[in-house]
């Protein structure tokens, strides 16, 4: 297909990723959150594949497959299993009220566009516009971790950040060197296991996954 269309689709998908991020920011239900995360992963992998196809970077296919298997299937599955095992409540409450969170999110998007504009000028790639989206996704992931007080949601936020990074890696530069991508994937995998273990520990010791409970280590007044 012609580059124009490719660029269209690319930015379209990027937008979807961002949208998913926003959706996650306001999604209260845990399962819903996980599903959204899976969707985000899906968009991401498609995008990666597309970029790989357009720019004929074949190692991007591999990373796209990696993303697909990891972010779309494996991690959501693990999360589902964990939730089932731990029998934790379905609802999660946000710390801040949603409109405000949304506003901050939007502000972040604007900020990242502003920051990335010089970089966009430099780039010749069709995917250059998505760099800002990537940064915004990362930021929103962080924002999500800040606003949520549930261990699982924090992890999901963390993974969302990872998605943002992936987006950046594929879009800003037609993909990082393969070895790096593999390494990153490996790290994500290990991380997944670790937080799996953690959920159990936290749950057994505090019999809740509310991170608010974990505020003992501090400087006393």
């Amino acid at each position, binding site marked *: 297909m012609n580059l124009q269309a490719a660029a269209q689709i690319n930015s379209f998908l990027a937008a979807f990723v961002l949208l998913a991020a926003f959706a996650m920011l306001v999604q209260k239900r845990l399962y819903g959150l996980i599903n959204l995360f899976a969707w985000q992963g899906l968009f991401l992998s498609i995008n990666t594949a597309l970029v790989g196809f357009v720019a004929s970077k074949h190692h991007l296919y591999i990373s796209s497959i990696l993303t697909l298997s990891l972010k779309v299937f494996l991690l959501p599955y693990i999360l589902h299993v964990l939730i089932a095992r731990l029998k934790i409540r379905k609802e999660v409450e946000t710390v801040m009220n949603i409109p405000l969170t949304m506003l901050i999110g939007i502000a972040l998007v604007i900020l990242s566009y502003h920051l990335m504009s010089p*970089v966009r000028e430099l780039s010749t790639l069709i995917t250059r516009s998505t760099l800002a989206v990537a940064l915004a996704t990362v930021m929103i992931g962080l924002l999500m971790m800040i606003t949520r007080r549930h261990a699982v949601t924090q992890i999901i936020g963390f993974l969302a*950040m990872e998605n943002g990074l992936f987006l950046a890696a594929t879009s800003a530069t037609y993909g*990082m060197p393969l*070895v790096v991508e593999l*390494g990153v994937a490996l790290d994500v995998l290990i991380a997944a296991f*670790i937080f799996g273990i*953690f959920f159990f520990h936290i749950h057994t010791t505090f019999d809740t996954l509310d991170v608010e409970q*974990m505020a003992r*280590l501090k400087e006393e007044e």
Partner: protein
Amino acid sequence: MILLILLCVPVVAATVLAFIGDRKIAPEINILGSAATCAAGLGLALQVYEQGPMMAGGKFFFVDAFNVYLAVLTSFVSMTTAIFSRRYMRREREHGRVGHVGMRFYHAMFQLFIFAMLLCLLTNNIGILWIAMELATLSTVLLVSLYRTPTAIEAAWKYFILCGVGIAQALFGTVLLYFAAEKILGEGGDALLWTNLSQVSDKLEPTVLSLAFVFLMVGYGTKVGLVPLHNWLPDAHSEGPTPISAVLSGLLLNIALYALVRCKVLVDGSTHTHHAGNIMMGFGLLSILVASFSLLRQKDIKRMFSYSSIEHMGIATFAFGLGGPIATFGALLHMLVHSLAKSAIFFTVGHASQMHWTQEMDKIKGLFKGNPLVGWGMMFGVMAIVGMPPFGIFTSEFLILTATIKDAPLLTPFLLLGVGVAFAALFRRVQPMVAGEVPTYQHPMKVAHVPVVLHMAIVLGIGLYLPEFLNRWFYTAVGLLK
């Protein structure tokens, strides 16, 4: 060749220990493994010392004066830590704080951690550097929560989340770096090799690099434990088993700082401004002040010393940010002596807290009489860490301070304020612990002499006489970091 041995030994040891880590001989294997690593490290150092910088594994590894001395330091300290952990962990186990699985896990992860750090140091690829860093974090997360106490789990969780987030930022920075490099070096792996990057650094796009540096700074800065990204550090360092605290404080922080400095070199090369330096100086100064004032009101002994690590990392960061031959020299020296002294302190602290089964300083008393080695070790360690001559840290702080007088005279008072407050705070706390009569609830124990004595001897030696080869080393390193 040696380099491969250096990297393989820990992996092998890790795999072996993963299975037999709870046997009686596990500690010995652990020591053996790290001793071999240390020997390899020394061999490598010798090679570099004779032949100068070298690449290995097809540009994949790169060794120069800067990272090889850190590699030697890392392998050496991990060896002494292994020696220390033999007695320490045995006692922990007798006391039932860790079980079979725990011991296996501990030993395996310890070796894996060493591997991660060495990989960090030796790799030539900034991406791999990032991965190894993440690996180092992940391998220690579960060690921090080894004791399964609520506080331990909390600490580990915070460590995991905060460092994860930080590292994520670093990855974004790396991506941007790659983005900039790719234009010059073309696509593919070469664009992330430090050797190539450093050659073309002045062609790299300044705006992108300064953006990238922000993310790298925040990312690796979190690992270095710079204020205000430091909050995980006191928790993680104080809750884990003491050997882990020793290597975390003594080594991991150095590694993160190393990564940061590598990046700074690139950025400086590209932007030709002192922005990066200023940012680092800002973080450093903030860390020094906050940490030293926090020291004043500590009750938990390990927590106190982890704050002091923050302070010293602040000093080193400040010095690197300051730049210039003397400051950089001082910073390199400071990294070396600090990690030696700090790990020595943690050894004594570990024994002290085991002798009283508490980390509360008010309950620890009479170490001079109770166990002279621990008492005097801690005393001299603290004297070293607060920068009393003739210990090495005085030399480095002397250089850094005097360099500051030249380049940023107005910052000297703050620097001194920090150092002075830290001095008072630490002595105020340590004095009652070492002095006085032995309390009834203190029970004697066999302690590991070798590591403490060895470390303190080296720190003292460096303070009195900096060997020529180290000197040359540092100078070449200074040259590299210009």
